[in-house]
């Protein structure tokens, strides 16, 4: 069965949402490249969960609202979205930029967050650990550096139509707006990560060239009830590059929590 695709207007912003599956709700917050397509890991998760994949305001098929300036704005927006969808207990999963949003949200309140999974999340800076500069990489370099498996990297399709190019540029623009400086982090976030009360799983690829795996222990040490799982031979996108291992861990973690 195919996923369902709808548009919802939340906080004055029309956003695109993909959804599929039965079970406890799992809200997935995408990274800098958006969520144009329903991916294999989403399908695997949908076997056990009601998987909800919105595109952030300012990304992909969603509108760009006037009020959007910071990742904090998106974190507040997703509190509105959770209320709008009537979710009272949700597994929140965020990757990269989406992980940053999820972490910010969880510092405000974990009232409706049953569990938190952060996949190579942006959001903090670790002194002495140099991040990659995705804004300086060509599209080919970006593909190469996001993956450990270079065969997989080469198979990533470059946008072919003008519409696809436009979406890519739109996502890139909003990523810059939110994360150009300070580069992909909020200097104040680390002060409040101890507020996160939801059980938290942090996942990192051991060959992440954008946000190095040294970020994993830093995040783990800042969030009290968290554990860190490193995936071997994996780049910045564990949910894509190691979909099966990723899904197994998320499923196991969320079931233990439940």
């Amino acid at each position, binding site marked *: 069965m195919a996923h369902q695709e709808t548009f919802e207007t939340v906080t004055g912003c029309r956003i695109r949402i993909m959804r599929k599956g039965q079970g406890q709700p799992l809200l997935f917050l995408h990274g800098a490249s958006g969520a144009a397509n329903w991916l294999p890991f989403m399908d695997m998760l949908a076997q056990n969960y009601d998987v909800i994949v919105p595109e952030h305001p300012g990304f992909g098929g969603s509108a760009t609202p006037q009020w959007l300036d910071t990742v904090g704005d998106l974190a507040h927006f997703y509190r509105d979205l959770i209320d709008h969808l009537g979710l009272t207990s949700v597994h929140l999963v965020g990757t990269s930029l989406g992980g940053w949003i999820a972490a910010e949200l969880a510092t405000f309140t974990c009232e409706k967050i049953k569990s938190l999974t952060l996949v190579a999340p942006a959001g903090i800076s670790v002194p002495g650990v140099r991040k990659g500069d995705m*804004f300086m990489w060509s599209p080919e370099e970006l593909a190469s550096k996001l993956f450990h498996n270079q065969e997989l990297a080469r198979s990533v399709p470059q946008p072919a139509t003008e519409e696809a190019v436009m979406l890519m*540029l739109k996502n890139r623009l909003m990523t*810059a707006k939110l994360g150009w400086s300070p580069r992909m982090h909020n200097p104040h976030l680390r002060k409040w990560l101890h507020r996160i009360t939801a059980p938290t799983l942090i996942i990192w690829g051991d060959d992440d060239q954008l946000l190095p795996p040294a970020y994993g222990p830093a995040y783990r040490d800042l969030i009290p009830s968290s554990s860190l799982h490193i995936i071997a031979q994996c780049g910045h996108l564990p949910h894509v590059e190691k979909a099966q291992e990723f899904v197994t861990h998320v499923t196991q973690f969320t079931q233990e929590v439940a």
Partner: protein
Amino acid sequence: MKLYMMHLMPYADLDLDYDKTHNSAWITLPNSYYDPKKGAKLYNRYLDELEYADQLGFDGVCVNEHHQNAYGLMPQPGVMAGALARRTKHVKIAILGRALPLLNNPVTVAEEFAMIDNITEGRFIAGFVRGIGAEYHAWSSNPADSHERFHEAHDLIVRAWTEIGPFPFEGKHYQFEYVNLWPRPYQTPRPPIWIPSQGSSETIEWASHPDRRYTYLQTFTPAAMLAKYMQMYKDMAAEHGYEATEDQLGWSVPVYVGETDEIARREAQPHIENFLNKFLRMPKEMLLPPGYLSLKSMIGVMKAKSAIGGKQTIDDVMDKGMFICGSPQTVRQKLEQYQKEIGFGHLLTLLQFGTLPADLTRKNMELFAKEVMPHLQARGTTPAVSEPAFS
């Protein structure tokens, strides 16, 4: 027509083999390539050249701002304008310009420009730009906020120059309880404002608006495009119900004059090609960070696929009218023809470019000043309509 000498002050001693290991002369080229002993000599040589332009009878000298690169060594152009302010006697001094979106505090530029305007007793021309894309990498300024910050900083600076302070300023990016400029600018109501651009209909529309009537300066562009953009300015002015004067239109172009066409081409070739292929070299991601251009313009650029960095020859740029090179007669004829067809009132000549050494730069300046300039200066410029006063 008014004639100016523009200088980029490149690091002419750059090891030109840098491109075997680095993809750009900007941002990521290690500054170990810069030798302060050589750089000091270059700074003083370049300042001497601009002072010499004053003696040769140019109407003005121009400097600009670029960061972290070998292409132009003026990250703080106010330093150069300050040095020139006391050593020149007649020329206008133009900073073309400061990149406003990079500023954490635009009042610093309002102050600096007002100081130069006072020291020179009104010989100052202010330029405002967004800077090229690379500056946003160099200064960590968010390119996605570039347009917003440009307009807000501009409004703040112009108000600081023209309104009696103190007044508060509450913008999205800049906030002040007290704006109260000491010194006020020497010129009334403020220094002339020029807007350099590589061609953008948005910029032309903004500059030509009757509230502003800023001089639009087309930089390093094929002559055909120059004509198109200048016409666009005139058309937009006409739509607003006024006629644009030549004083509102300027062109900045590298020029080399030799004794004959053949000598000029031979002498200029390696240096203009170094300028094009070594000093301007940068990848698209560096030149066009996200948000620097509108999404529509970005699509256009991506379709064109011809990023700066593609190898160019002296003939490419001469054919396109991006480089004026030849005997005094050739250069005079070409410039007169462009001026007649396109109708600009300010010509900014880049008489040193790339690796062009001191002796050839001086010879170029002298031949231009003696054999070309008098003919062009004599060409009538429609009298400037004074820009509207700001309350």
